Structures are given as structure tokens and as C-alpha cells.
């Protein structure tokens, strides 16, 4: 009898929690690219993305009780990653500095040539980048973003709008 993917993953998670390395490796192989990519997009640094990836998988083992059986594992893991990344961001940058940090990104950028999208993303502050990525690629609502940053929905909408305008100008700047 073959297991449905969600059941199979649940078993992997349970077995990994019991110390089964093979089950843990199976989970890692399937989900680490998605988790790592998200961590990299949010943090902008490979060393930070490494840490976030590791922490995500270890947290998932601890937080197994919080996982609803039958639901897909990928989004749950990514939610853990995003929460960890935002927590770090907030620890490094207390809430009062978030706005200042965002304003700092409006300074004139003078690249020698048009930036590709990835490089343009890197030019955004971590907060702006996280809002862009989580809202557009991970489907977070402005309410969820506002809650996580202890801000308002209009703050989240405003950051998204300004960040996209900035991205556009960065990627359109030419020689």
C-alpha cells in the first residue's frame, strides 16, 4: 500500500522526531531548497540563510504538535522560516528603526548599469524585501505582515508600494 504524500511526510516527521536520520534526510532533501531560497530572499545573506534553514528544520521537529495532520508540510516549514527571519530582523532592528531603515532606502542609487532583478532585490532593505517577497510570493496578507511587524496594514501596503517602485527604478536604470 502506498501512502499519500502528506501521510508519508507526516511519518517522516514523526520518525525524524524519534531520531531517525534517514527520515530527517528525506525531509531535508525535499524541502531544503524552498526553505533555503526563502531564507536567502528574506535575509539577503547566505550565512544567515544557512542558519535559518537549520533552525527551521530543528524547530519543525520540536513543533510537531502544532502541525495539522493532512496539511502540506512545505508551507508550514516556510512559515517557520519566515517567522524566524522576521524575529531576527526585529531583534537586530528594533521597531523604531524599521521606518528609518526604510527611508534610508529611498536615497539615490547610481549604478553603472541596470540591475537584474535579484541584484535589485538585494538593494532593498531587509524589511522592504521581506514585505515584497512574503506578500507576492508566499501569499501573506497585509494583516499578517502588519501583525508580525507590530505595525498597521496601511504600513504594510505602503512599504510594498514603495519597495516595488524602488525595484522598478533600480531595474530600469541604465548606463
Amino acid at each position, binding site marked *: 500500500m502506498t501512502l499519500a504524500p502528506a501521510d508519508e511526510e507526516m511519518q517522516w516527521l514523526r520518525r*525524524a522526531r524519534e*531520531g531517525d536520520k534517514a527520515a530527517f*534526510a528525506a525531509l531535508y532533501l525535499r524541502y*531544503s531548497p524552498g526553505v533555503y531560497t526563502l531564507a536567502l530572499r528574506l535575509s539577503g545573506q547566505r550565512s544567515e540563510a*544557512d542558519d535559518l534553514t*537549520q533552525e527551521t*528544520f530543528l524547530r519543525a521537529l520540536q513543533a510537531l504538535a502544532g502541525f495539522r495532520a493532512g496539511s502540506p508540510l512545505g508551507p508550514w516549514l516556510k512559515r517557520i522560516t519566515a517567522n524566524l527571519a522576521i524575529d531576527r530582523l526585529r531583534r537586530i532592528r528594533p521597531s523604531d528603526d524599521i521606518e528609518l531603515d526604510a527611508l534610508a532606502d529611498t536615497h539615490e542609487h547610481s549604478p553603472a548599469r541596470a540591475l537584474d*532583478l535579484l541584484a535589485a532585490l538585494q538593494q532593498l532593505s531587509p524589511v522592504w524585501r521581506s514585505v515584497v517577497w512574503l506578500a*507576492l510570493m508566499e501569499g501573506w496578507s497585509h494583516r499578517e505582515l502588519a501583525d508580525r511587524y507590530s505595525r498597521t496594514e496601511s504600513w504594510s501596503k505602503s512599504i510594498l508600494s514603495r519597495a*516595488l517602485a524602488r525595484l522598478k527604478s533600480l531595474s530600469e536604470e541604465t548606463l
Partner: protein
Amino acid sequence: MTSENELAQWRHRLATLAEETPPPSTWLDLQLAFANQVRPMNARRARWPWALAAALMLALVPVWWMQSRVAAPAGLQAIHVDAVPPAQLLRALDRELQLRYQDGASDEDLAPLWREREKLLRRTQPAAAMRAAETIRI
């Protein structure tokens, strides 16, 4: 504010960015952290069979005490022995064993429970217990 159409275009553009793969060192470091994390978890889990066995023993002590202290009429002594239905204890043990198996407990974790079960069986039905134990071990 950004229009829905514009947001959709951005989504499309961002989706074209390639997925990244973590470097091998991430997995190596994670394995070490995993080993450190699951060891204490397993140690905690391994303690529960002993706690259950202890609870069972404690539950039996008052019954044993009553049987040894109360000078009941001969006819009632049989009733006292039957007052602790071993079948009920067995069922409880079996339920625990089943749950723990489903939960992926190791044979080592379950050994104390099996020993309790065999002791209980031996006390009540020595011959049947031996047969049952043999069957189970097979």
C-alpha cells in the same frame, strides 16, 4: 498604491528567479544539531514506560494490602482475588503497547511494558501466559 495587474506582473517576474540549493555544509551542521536535539528527546521518552510500570505497581499495593490484612470469610477471599480483574490491567497495558507502537517506540522502550505484561499473565494463568508470551515473541 500598486494595482492588481502590476502586482501580478511582479509576481511573475519574481517567480522567474531560480530556486537556490543550500551548500553541503548546511546539511553537515544540521546533522550534528539534529543528533544533539533528538538525544535528549529520546531520553525523555524512554522514561515513560518506567513511570507507567511504577503506577501499575502502586495501584496493586492497596489491593495486596487489603488481601493480606482483611480476614475475610473463606468464601469472600475468592471475591477479593477477582476484585482486581487482571484482564482490565492487561487491556490497559495492551492499549498502551499499541499506542506506543503506533507512535514508533523502539523495542528497548517497550521492554519494561512487555515484562509487566508477562508477569501479570504468569500470575493469573501461568500456562496460558507462557503460551501467549511465546506466541508474541514469534
